């Protein structure tokens, strides 16, 4: 069987066909095909599935450095750079920054975004000194992101834990919550920030960010909950929701289903699956001369 063949027609099962998925122009803003990798094999294999499911573009959140230290150089960086340049019509990259080291983070952004192929920055769920995104350390990082027109993705969760048990009480040190994103967004009202993972708990996440219009919402990396996207559209508006796949650890089936479950027109689905992401990416793509139709 070829990678794009299907044993049964998905349409017979109330699912979009591959042609329909392609027509939605899906941008996967949460791609982990480079995560923990030491060669390009995992990425190549992931791209087979992206192709099978009609994904137009993947945006890696793991460019440069290592998983434990995003600012240390690694031999894999050369491979990543080559892929980003060679496959620039399908693959984009964001660099992971380290809020414990704002200067080092800005140097990495200069290297990879201003003078390199990347289009944005990513805050991970942990860092060296336990600094969340609301900390003042982040101001020079966000200022530079604004200057470069770079996209800003922030991992957020509100894990239940602590004493007394509460949302966020189980977070790792330095793991931001949607409230951290809102605090940062208030200091930079002219910078769009992506609140990743919907804060883990989308019911609380939407409540937290709904008043802050420069905060976007992304659902990847959590279980698929029927009705979640409907709820987010009602509370935030359809133009503030972007989509990510979170593969390979999450199934594309999981992440696609969250949007397909919602009561949306094809146009609205396309807006969430890719239109809003392209709007966020437009400034940096234009600056770099990357091709992109809206």
């Amino acid at each position, binding site marked *: *069987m*070829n*990678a794009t*063949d*299907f*044993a*049964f*027609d*998905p349409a*017979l*099962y*109330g*699912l979009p066909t591959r042609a329909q998925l392609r027509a939605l122009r899906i941008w996967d803003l949460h791609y*982990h*095909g480079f*995560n*923990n*990798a*030491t*060669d390009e*094999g*995992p990425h*190549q*294999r*992931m791209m*087979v*599935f992206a192709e*099978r*499911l009609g994904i137009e573009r993947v945006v890696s959140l793991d460019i440069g450095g290592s998983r434990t230290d995003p600012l240390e150089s690694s031999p894999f960086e050369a491979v990543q750079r080559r892929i980003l340049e060679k496959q620039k019509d399908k693959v984009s990259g964001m660099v992971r920054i380290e809020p414990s080291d704002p200067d080092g983070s800005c140097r990495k952004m200069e290297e990879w975004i201003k003078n390199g192929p990347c289009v944005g920055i990513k805050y991970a769920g942990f860092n060296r000194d336990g600094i969340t995104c609301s900390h003042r350390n982040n101001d020079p990082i966000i200022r530079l992101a604004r200057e470069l027109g770079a996209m800003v993705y922030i991992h957020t969760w*509100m894990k*239940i834990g602590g004493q*007394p*048990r*509460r*949302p966020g009480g*189980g977070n790792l040190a330095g793991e931001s919550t949607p409230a951290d994103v809102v605090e940062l967004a208030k200091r930079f009202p002219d910078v769009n920030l992506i609140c990743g993972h919907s804060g*883990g*708990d989308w*019911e609380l996440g939407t409540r937290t960010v709904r008043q802050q219009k420069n905060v976007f919402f992304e659902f990847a990396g*959590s*279980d*698929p*909950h*029927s*009705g979640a996207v*409907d709820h987010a559209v009602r509370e935030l508006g359809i133009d503030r929701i972007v989509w990510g*796949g979170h*593969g*390979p*650890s*999450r*199934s*594309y*089936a*999981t992440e*696609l*289903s*969250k949007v*397909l*479950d919602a009561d949306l027109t094809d146009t609205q689905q396309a807006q969430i699956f890719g239109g809003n992401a392209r709007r966020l990416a437009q400034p940096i793509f234009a600056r770099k001369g990357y091709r992109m139709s809206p």
Partner: protein
Amino acid sequence: MNRRCFLQQTLSTAAVLTAAARAQTSNSPAAPPAPSAAEAPALIDTNIHLFDWPFRRLKYSRTADLVAKLRRHRVREAWSGSFEALLTKDVSGVNARLAEECRGHPGFLIPIGTVNPAWPDWEEDLRRCHEVHRMPGIRLYPRYHGLAVNDPEMIRLLRLATERGLLVQIALELEDPRVHHPVLQLPPLDVGTIAQGLKAVPAARVQLLDCTFSFQLPIVQPLLDLANVTFDFSSFESVGILDRLLNEKAGGRGTPIAPERLLFGSHAPYFPVEAALLRLFESPLTRSQLEPLMAGNARRLLSAVSTAP
């Protein structure tokens, strides 16, 4: 090992699918044409619930809406538990309401009652499920009911259900514990105690639902060694997971999982029906691999159980 660790382990290079490479390099220039609508098999959904999830109003909580939704996705039969079973003490009432609701959709909704061995006289609930409501199986919630699968009372329940020829479904993780309501504190998911309990009743016909552990890990091998245990794949995660399990490796022995062990289950209406359904299409599986997962294995599993005393 917690859920997050399991997910992170699936990020390993090995986890990213040599199946993809197999599909990519396949040279089948003349793939057979996709079957017509008449040839495409309908689905049996082995894992749905009726009524209200205790912590949120679900989009398809109304039975009529859920049935219509399932039918739109070519589901022709759905094995239905009740969300009321999680926290309600009057289990007899829960099962009676479930049976009544399913009677409104005969042949489509198959009621799967519950028994809580932590409550007094649970044996009567088991009897009623079988003899009064003529249910083909029961669904257990050991974590919500506060009894481990290897608890002596749970093992006695497994034995009695088996003597009656009933299917036993065991729901493991209905909701990610990271997003539980703060007042809810369930015991952790422990694969070892589950395997230990099931091993004590080898004749039991058991299906595990909502399995969030990684089937690539050796820790799952004790469950895979129990040939009488099957799984729904509603909570299986990672890109191309079904292809990898069926064609590459699972558990500690690193051999593929037998296809007859896997059944379609959506965990609707908590999950979108599309999530499990898309897993069937995400992986480049053949017709002969898909048909047992879609319905054949479920049909066989239920045909072997007793629906009448």
